[in-house]
């Protein structure tokens, strides 16, 4: 029995059913309701867990090709040698204990009309689909990048590239030039490139004092925590050369040189190109993206796609909410979306819940800064209530960030 006919069936019962319906009684003869989640990152894993927590009678399948969860937050610390990737790597075993069926396979296609997801030769049917595909790179936006993408590291999805970039930095002779490029907005983790620059700045200052980092930013100014990062860059002024409005247009790995939009040519010993981004490929293929062909527009309360019914999109792939593409926001969206999906599957109106954002950036081996945003729902739209920044960098904020990561990783995977 599908949910629609079940609902019709219930309506036949009339008043007496409505009166009895409020009692918590065992579930018999109920149709199996299925939620499929694509992507086991900060948004998807959270959503899968919270659907099960909210209504254990719903069957949840999570599709995630990676066997382990690697946290992007804190991965910039690995580049500076102050954190190990091992400490940022978690497994999915506790999620399985919540009753989430995990398949370490990629979803290859979505059939919205027939409500099916293709996984290898299988087709998984769903009543609701939650897509949390993260980001993919637009290699073609930088000339020469597509061909060189195995050599030119992005390290913007934590994993092997994070370790490789750390090794390149460690192996660079003192006096070397590191070049990193910041993509135009919107991209995953707005303060991330500047945290990375700060951590590399700290690393060069303390370990390779004759070296220098050149930051080529496609944006007009530092995108996030601007004042705080400017103060940090000043602390590292002998080691960080920050250049705004310098979108990288070309890379030549033979000449070890990048060319910017203004025609400037910059030589490097180690390069880190953070490429321009869009929603994960499956969201583009399934026509969940808008006119920009990059990001997915969603309802601000339910996260249902504005383009496809019964498909919800969460996390970095979304656009239109006044929130950053952060792990904390993805986690909040996962919980809110799970509540909305469970409400809808039970014939209830989804509650209006707004996300929140707590975002820490480390700027040395011991200190961090933070920005925190609170939101409300107004006329069905997410609206910011307040944004607060830490007054400056401190070890206390760094301590709080470690408590935050313990809590939120547990909230996602525990």
């Amino acid at each position, binding site marked *: 029995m599908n949910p629609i006919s079940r609902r019709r069936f219930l309506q036949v019962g009339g008043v007496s059913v409505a009166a009895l319906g409020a009692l918590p009684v065992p579930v018999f*003869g109920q149709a199996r309701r299925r939620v499929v989640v694509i992507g086991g990152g900060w948004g998807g894993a959270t959503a899968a867990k919270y659907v099960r927590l909210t209504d254990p009678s719903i069957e949840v399948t999570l599709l995630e090709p990676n066997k382990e969860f690697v946290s992007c937050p804190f991965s910039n610390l690995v580049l500076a040698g102050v954190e190990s990737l091992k400490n940022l790597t978690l497994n999915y075993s506790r999620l399985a204990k919540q009753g989430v069926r995990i398949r370490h396979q990629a979803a290859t296609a979505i059939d919205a009309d027939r409500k099916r997801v293709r996984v290898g030769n299988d087709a998984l049917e769903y009543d609701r689909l939650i897509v949390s595909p993260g980001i993919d790179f637009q290699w073609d936006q930088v000339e020469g990048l597509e061909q060189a993408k195995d050599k030119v590291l992005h390290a913007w999805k934590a994993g092997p590239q994070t370790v490789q970039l750390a090794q390149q930095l460690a192996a660079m002779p003192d006096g070397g030039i590191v070049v990193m490029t910041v993509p135009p907005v919107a991209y995953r983790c707005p303060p991330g490139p500047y945290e990375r620059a700060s951590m590399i700045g700290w690393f060069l200052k303390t370990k390779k004092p004759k070296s220098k980092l050149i930051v080529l930013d496609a944006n007009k100014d530092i995108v996030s925590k601007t004042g705080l990062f400017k103060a940090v860059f000043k602390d590292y002024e002998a080691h960080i050369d920050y250049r705004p409005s310098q979108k990288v247009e070309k890379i030549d790995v033979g000449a070890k040189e990048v060319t910017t939009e203004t025609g400037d040519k910059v030589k490097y010993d180690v390069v880190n190109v953070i490429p321009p981004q869009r929603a994960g490929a499956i969201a583009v293929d399934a026509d969940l993206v808008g006119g920009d062909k990059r990001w997915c527009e969603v309802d601000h309360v339910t996260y249902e796609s504005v383009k496809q019914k019964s498909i919800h999109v969460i996390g970095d792939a979304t656009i239109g909410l006044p929130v950053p593409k952060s792990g904390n926001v993805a986690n909040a969206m996962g919980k809110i979306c799970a509540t909305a999906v469970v409400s809808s599957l039970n014939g209830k109106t989804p509650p209006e819940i707004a996300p929140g954002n707590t975002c820490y950036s480390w700027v040395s081996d011991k200190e961090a800064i933070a920005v925190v945003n*609170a939101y409300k729902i107004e006329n069905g739209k997410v609206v910011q209530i307040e944004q607060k920044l830490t007054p400056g960098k401190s070890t206390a904020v760094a301590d709080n960030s470690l408590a935050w990561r313990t809590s939120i990783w547990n909230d996602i995977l525990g």
Partner: protein
Amino acid sequence: MEKIQIVRLFAVFVLALTASPSAAGPLDSPGAQKALICSACHGFAGNAPGNHVPILAGMNANYFKKAIKDYAEGKRTSPEMEPYSKYVLQFGLDEIAEYFASQKKPVPFSVKIDPKKLSRGQTLATQCIACHGPKGDGENERVIPALRGQPRGFLEAQMALFGSDKRKLDDAGLEEAKKRIFKGLEGPDFEDLAAYYATLK
């Protein structure tokens, strides 16, 4: 025999009609739904696993409400809690306070701590009993927070704020009493007190 089967069938039919799948879910209350985003830092149902984040499960409702108002008004400064306190005020202070107050408090931390530190902490804690109670459970009526079972890092940080006068009490008499107590305390005392209360069973 047939009659029994019919009765059984009827029972199944009624149960199928009355099935309310989400009624027993742990998140099926307005307070729980409004507190959903708090779990990123404060853990599921207020059971914070981090060392610097307070445990909200079982927190006295009156104290929770006061803390939220103090953060929102800037009486207590926290870049994290100032925005989120406004979120709580926006979405329903009473419901969220009641939700956390009704959650089961986790078993206090069982970490290995030097017994000497614990016994120093216990001795120092005699000064706290008058307000926070013999077991550090606080008192809802008097808007006094429980100390027992809170994370060490959090307790130490709060004591450091009280000790440096960055956190004050509303009542002038209590503020004087608190000042007198904190005048005699320093960093290592905070550590021992925190260790004692964090692990107090």
